[in-house]
């Protein structure tokens, strides 16, 4: 009986011990999330493990203390240790401090593991492994020697006393930013310095030549500035400004714009056109017209026989202001109370062939407009239909009227073909038609007859 009682006591004691061990291990697993482990706290020869304080949490953030541990919701004032892993959701971030002088923030949709956070005397070694996402890292110089890195699958950022950002997230190229100080950014087989001591913002994108290459690739030159214009365009715009126009830039159509001012007078025009081949549209009413030039390169007579094929096209903006053969429209004139002027030109050689010049009504009131074409400074004949819509006529200066929703155009043969010139009669309104002249000059009061549309009419929405 007695032996049985002693046996029962031992069994009870054993169960109590077992329960205590289980309870302590269970408690220990919970406590591990908030306290550095004793084993990690002191590692002979490799320094002392540092603690990490969670100081701010925004949105959905979870942490875990090891690969096999469950994820728990991050809260401010939690204390983490080496090996801890953090992950965030959209619109979320977590900021941690490694005393005394390191702060890192993992923001939206990222994952970071604190691989190393060790202090050995005056030397601090920190390594964050970022699977993906973006991490801000700030080290304030406090008399300690830092060896801090952020490592991602395709890049490494070595940080020494600076305020940096590393972002690595497919499908985008990784980049590093230094807000102050210098960091070392490694991508592929190349390492670049980002920023400088006591310097300001610098950014390096992977695959470029460091900060300088990134800065260059991200530079946008505002085309309004003289240095970004060719001498020809600068002179044309300067002429517009001298006539009271305001120069701006339309980022949607991607071309300089001119508002106000006035068109060139007939007496000024031939001397101001810059190219070996120039197409000029001028108008006098408070309207916005756009110049269009189509090119069918080749032999002009053959192209007439085959029908006009628009191989190249010039239009003010939307990437169509330059043509492969060198045609160029320097600006889009939006018009004004005194009208406006647009020009398309070729410098140097230009293709022979059949050209089409057109005017498209964009907005405003019906207005008189004038076409001129010059090859090597000499006026060229334009061919268009008379008001009856059947008779083909010609003139070196064509003046007509254009209203809302209308389009008008003429054909031009380059080089000029004397044979065709002999066959096609002159415009009854004169060859050249009266154009645009200063007030007081007789022909300035010319009011052109409203012809039927020259070649066709289409809506202003065609493009």
């Amino acid at each position, binding site marked *: 009986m007695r032996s049985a009682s002693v046996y029962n006591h031992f069994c009870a004691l054993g169960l109590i011990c077992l329960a205590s061990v289980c309870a302590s291990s269970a408690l220990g697993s919970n406590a591990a999330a908030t306290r550095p482990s004793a084993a990690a706290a002191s590692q002979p020869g490799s320094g002392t493990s540092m603690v990490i304080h969670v100081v701010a949490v925004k949105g*959905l953030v*979870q942490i875990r203390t090891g690969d096999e541990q469950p*994820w728990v*919701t991050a809260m401010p004032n939690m204390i983490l240790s080496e090996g801890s892993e953090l*992950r*965030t*959701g*959209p*619109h979320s*971030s977590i*900021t941690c401090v490694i005393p005394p002088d390191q*702060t*890192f*923030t993992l*923001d*939206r*949709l*990222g*994952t970071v593991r604190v691989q190393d956070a060790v202090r050995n005397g005056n030397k601090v070694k920190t390594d964050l492994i970022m*699977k*993906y*996402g*973006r991490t*801000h*890292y*700030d080290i304030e110089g406090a008399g300690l020697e830092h060896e801090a890195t952020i490592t991602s699958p395709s890049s490494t950022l070595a940080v020494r006393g600076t*305020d940096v*950002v590393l*972002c690595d*997230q*497919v*499908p*985008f190229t990784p980049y590093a*930013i230094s*807000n*102050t100080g210098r960091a070392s950014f490694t991508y592929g087989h190349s390492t670049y310095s980002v920023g400088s001591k006591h310097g300001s913002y610098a*950014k390096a994108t992977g695959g470029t030549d460091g900060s300088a290459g990134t800065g260059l690739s991200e530079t946008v030159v505002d085309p309004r500035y003289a240095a970004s214009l060719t001498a020809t365009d600068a002179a044309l715009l300067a002429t517009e400004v001298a006539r009271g126009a305001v120069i701006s830039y339309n980022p*949607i*159509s991607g071309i300089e714009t001119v508002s106000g001012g006035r068109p060139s007078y007939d007496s000024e025009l031939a001397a101001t056109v810059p190219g070996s081949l120039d197409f000029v549209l001028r108008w006098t009413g408070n309207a916005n017209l756009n110049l269009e030039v189509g090119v069918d390169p080749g032999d002009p007579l053959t192209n007439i026989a085959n029908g006009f094929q628009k191989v190249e096209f010039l239009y003010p903006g*939307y990437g169509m202001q330059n043509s492969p053969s060198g045609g160029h429209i320097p600006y889009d004139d939006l018009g004004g109370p005194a009208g406006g002027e647009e020009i398309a030109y070729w410098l140097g050689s230009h293709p022979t062939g059949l050209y089409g010049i057109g005017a498209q009504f964009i907005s405003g009131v019906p207005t008189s407009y004038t076409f001129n074409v010059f090859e090597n400074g000499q006026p060229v004949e334009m061919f268009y239909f008379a008001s009856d819509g059947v008779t083909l006529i010609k003139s070196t200066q064509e003046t007509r009227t254009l209203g809302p929703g209308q389009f008008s155009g003429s054909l031009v043969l380059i080089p000029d073909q004397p044979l065709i010139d002999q066959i096609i009669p002159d415009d009854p309104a004169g060859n050249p038609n009266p154009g645009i002249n200063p007030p007081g000059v007789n022909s300035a009061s010319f009011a052109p007859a409203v012809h039927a549309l020259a070649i066709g009419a289409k809506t202003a*929405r065609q493009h």
Partner: protein
Amino acid sequence: MRSDPPIAARAIAWAFCALTTICAGCQTAHVNSPLTGKFSGNDADAQLNFWHELANRHLTSNDEALHGLLLYADGRDDAINYDKRVATLKSRGLLPASFSEPANDAIRRGDLAVAVVNLLGIKGGWVMHIFGPIPRYAVRELVYAGIFPPSSPQQTFSGAEFVGVIGKLDDYQQPVAADTSVR
């Protein structure tokens, strides 16, 4: 003694093989077990598991992408299945009324771009002003805005790429937070 098959028969066999190969190559990529079945809840665990499991997947399905978009936009997704998600997004004008892609097919960048453009209220250039957000130009607008990588509308997204794009969406909406000093 075995005789070779006639040339016509061999040609037909080759044509059949080529046709089979082409048809197989044209199939839309298919996602077998979307994460929406496993992590469909609105709690923090389900949401974070969804995002970070998705980052390890080779493809993002239509169902996963629309679930992710709702989580991003609202912080929750109360739709119980793919059809409800599509209906929700259509009712909010984020998806076109004609959208009818299967749940488990990989999301096309063009389809996602239309939803993102509508979500962000991006007006775009003159083509989008005239024609509205169609996949081709929606993708171009998002590439221009830095939200999409240079893409064609027919391409698909891996899970990590989709998560990256959602991250860029966040940056687009909160540009001050992105890349600025922590000091």
